[in-house]
């Protein structure tokens, strides 16, 4: 499946771009992260500490066990700092 990937804040800075189309057969968010980490040092740096990584699947906050079947957009970002 082809996913629309989005990255925000320091996750975006470490990866080096804010969005990309990404072809994957990853079953869960955790599988997807493992694939990304293996791509290059930027991704590895972004995902070095998963305790400070949040994920939204199709614009809903989710978790690393979430299945990716039928999903179109996955976003990774640090804990939010609104308000």
């Amino acid at each position, binding site marked *: 499946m082809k996913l629309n990937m*989005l990255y*925000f804040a*320091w996750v975006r800075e470490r990866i080096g771009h804010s969005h990309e189309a990404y072809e994957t057969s990853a079953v869960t968010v955790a599988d997807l992260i493992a694939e990304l980490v293996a791509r290059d040092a930027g991704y590895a740096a972004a995902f070095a500490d998963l305790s400070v990584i949040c994920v939204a699947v199709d*614009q809903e906050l989710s978790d690393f066990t979430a299945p990716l079947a039928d999903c179109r957009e996955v976003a990774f970002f*640090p804990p939010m700092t609104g*308000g």
Partner: protein
Amino acid sequence: MSARVQEAAFDFAAEMTAFQSTVTRSGAVVSFTGVVRDDTGNLDHMFIEHYPGMTQAALQKFADQATETFGLEKVLVIHRYGQLQPGEAIMMVATAARHRKDAFAGADYLMDYLKSRAPFWKKELSKGSATWVAAKAQDEAELAAWGLEGTAKES
């Protein structure tokens, strides 16, 4: 219930006048304004990034939740993004309820959700340094204290 995400500054006085003018059955109106703070005296400006596809829906959801939980008559949320100078207003919430305790609690609840669940990220730019503001463990604790939702970090 109104929720807005915008880059431009807002006019707090005009917003509150408009808000209160449409309230018909509330005896209490509460507002909160978040302002860019310069703790060190060196802050040049703050940059706020957000997730355009998700932000508006998230704010609307929190406004609806606050309305239902505290029986609010009316809620307003405005949150800015982009480049902001020290002293500029980042965001505001306003709540209207029959009695003050629900109006205060509704505003407090909204703020706790906006802090930790609205997709905004703050970066502080000072002379020679740029630092993303880290989320505080206390923010998660305050959100959990409402007892209405688990934590975001479920993994």
